[in-house]
């Protein structure tokens, strides 16, 4: 019998029962909750007169709707009526149910996918769910983590379980040494460019290979975060010493009495040598250059030294039509060098790239320089209050403000523009976020996905440049 993949091990360890057709009832260890996808779930529980199965499994935080500017008024001070109602609704639900909750003025508040790992609330071997597709982030810890809809949020609240069909196993191996200045974000965008946004549909992706092993936990989180943009609900990386060093000594980590047995269990969280993968993709790290997205889907990417591609040379008619629509929306002409695309705004933040390592990488580029005159706004939105505090202790905030960046309070911000931070119609933005869909950062806004170093360099130059030579 073939060995097991990491996904097989995680799945099997959480099966409560199995139906005849293989449908499993899967136990959920950690449920992360935010204000956008939970109100209808709490309401559903109440209407059905059901209780939370295990409230200790829940960690709740507000992130999508919170302003990144002045917060002295707390939840009640949020200007937008609908945003305020959503935030105060979670305030009330958290209080009613006695949840562990980081509210708008808690220093631990931040983007749900930043604070989970930061608190040690995400641990190797766990099943982690959240009503948010970027829950795949937590797979970086050798956990089975994926996004769910609101009905499933309610289902987990009421039963601590999810009804699941087993996914296929897909291995994406990146071997070799990535060039200096080629980051986890570039690896992620390159992979999505190769496999396409539907490439991982129906699969859990394990990222392996020497270039992945070499990544920090921050880098692995960036990579797994974007598994969903490659069509896979779950991305994951096997546990190694890097993982274990990161998770110990955090508020929710195992206490000293459990540490030894926990580490022994975590060290088993890797695919067996003879494990079977349904799909395999191999990529040479040396082939990866800094990436810039040019279209309206994360698979529409090009290396920074390349050009905007030509739909007329695309063989597949549906794809060519998609490219034409994307170029029209993005107001770009085929053949334009990527480095000649001018920018209006730069956004450094989001659950993809707002951790301390991301902020340090951007700071290293902008140090002692000024934001280009053609930019209307360049902003840094740290992923959590604790990331912000650490960056300030390192003096990074001063580097950014001296260069002309705005230094904001933590939240999802302009990744999806549910708060006041957004693009105006026609504005073009270099963004460290994860989606370049039409209107994602504001109706009519044009998004180019890049790494933090590439965003920082673009802010200084006023257009895209190769951050490796900048």
């Amino acid at each position, binding site marked *: 019998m073939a060995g097991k993949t990491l996904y097989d091990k995680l799945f099997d360890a959480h099966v*409560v*029962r199995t*139906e*005849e*057709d293989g*449908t499993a*009832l899967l*136990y959920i260890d950690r449920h992360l909750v935010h204000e*956008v*996808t939970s*109100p*209808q779930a709490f309401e559903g529980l109440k209407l059905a007169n059901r209780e939370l*199965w*295990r409230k*200790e499994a829940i960690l709740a935080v507000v992130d999508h709707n919170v302003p990144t500017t002045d917060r002295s008024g707390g939840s009640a001070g949020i200007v937008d009526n*609908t*945003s305020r*109602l*959503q935030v105060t*609704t979670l305030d009330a639900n958290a209080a009613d149910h006695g949840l562990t909750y980081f509210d708008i003025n808690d220093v631990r508040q931040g983007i749900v996918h930043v604070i989970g790992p930061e608190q040690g609330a995400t*641990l190797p071997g*766990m099943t982690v769910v959240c*009503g948010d*597709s970027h829950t795949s982030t937590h797979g970086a810890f050798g956990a089975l983590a*994926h996004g*769910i*809809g*609101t*009905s*499933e949020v*309610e*289902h987990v609240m*009421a*039963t*601590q379980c999810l*009804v699941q069909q087993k996914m296929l196993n897909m291995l994406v191996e990146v071997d070799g040494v990535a060039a200096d200045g080629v980051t986890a974000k570039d690896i992620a965008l390159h992979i999505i460019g190769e496999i396409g*946004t*539907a490439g991982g*549909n129906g699969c859990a992706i394990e990222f392996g290979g020497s270039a992945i092993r070499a990544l920090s936990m921050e880098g692995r989180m960036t990579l797994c975060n974007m598994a*969903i943009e490659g*069509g*896979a609900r779950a991305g994951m990386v096997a546990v190694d010493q890097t993982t274990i060093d990161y998770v110990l000594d955090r508020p929710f*980590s195992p*206490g000293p009495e*459990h540490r030894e047995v*926990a580490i022994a269990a975590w060290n088993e969280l890797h695919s067996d040598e003879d494990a079977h993968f349904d799909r395999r993709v191999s990529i040479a790290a040396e082939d990866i250059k800094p990436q810039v997205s040019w279209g309206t*889907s994360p698979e529409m990417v090009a290396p920074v030294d390349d050009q905007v591609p030509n739909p007329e040379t695309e063989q597949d008619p*549906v*794809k060519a*039509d*998609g490219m034409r629509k994307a170029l029209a929306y993005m107001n770009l002409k085929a053949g334009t060098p990527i480095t000649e695309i001018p920018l209006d705004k730069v956004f450094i933040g989001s659950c993809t790239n707002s951790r301390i390592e991301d902020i340090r990488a951007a700071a290293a580029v902008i140090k002692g320089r000024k934001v280009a005159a053609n930019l209307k706004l360049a902003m840094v939105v740290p992923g959590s209050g604790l990331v912000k505090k650490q960056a300030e202790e390192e003096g990074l905030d001063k580097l950014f403000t001296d260069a002309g960046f705005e230094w904001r309070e933590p939240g999802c911000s302009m990744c*999806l*523009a*549910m708060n006041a931070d957004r693009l105006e119609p026609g504005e073009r933005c270099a963004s460290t976020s994860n*989606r370049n*869909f*039409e*209107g*994602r950062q504001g*109706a009519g806004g044009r998004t180019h996905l890049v790494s933090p170093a590439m965003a920082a360099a673009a802010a200084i130059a006023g257009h895209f440049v190769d951050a490796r030579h900048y």
Partner: protein
Amino acid sequence: MRAFTTLKALVAPLDQSNVDTDAIIPKQYLKSIQRSGFGPNLFDNWRYLDEGGPEIDNSKRRLNPDFVLNKNRYGGAEILLARENFGCGSSREHAVWALDQQGFRCVVATSFADIFYNNSFKSGFLPVQLNEEQMDVLFRECEETGGYELTVDLESQSVTTPSGQSFAFEIDAFRKNNLLRGLDDIGLTLEHADQIRDYEKRRAVETPWLFSE
């Protein structure tokens, strides 16, 4: 949950791949704490010429005459055709609610994003996957035929065209059964509460750090 058995209804074609959930229902409408009211904002950025918002009266907005679903011939359609990777991106179940509340009961596409596919069943909404050649036939016939209707039958797992051509589709037996009978997922799971408690007892011994609250 509402059951889905068989549906004979008008079809509307959305001939695009990678239709993401941000396009299906933009984020400004996700600020609602209700489960209803999303229908008028389905495909909001494509459907209207002027900008909308949660506090804006949609009936006063200008419709985009070029958007396919605004064409009179597709008014009242309950089945939507699409291409590869329908519903990709954000996990927002509001996308299913918006389609449902606009009157759609079923999407037939080349493939679906996993989270959207999962979410569909929770509203008694059926996602049907057919292959590229079959989708080409449906798109072509729908374009050429006024009042084009399909029959989607869950029991026999088939999509039948007006000329009687029938295409089979796959669906997990457990899901199919629940959808045919309109069963409540949570109620079903709670029938196994003892097994969940047994699992927790076992895991509390094996992985005590996960149960040390």
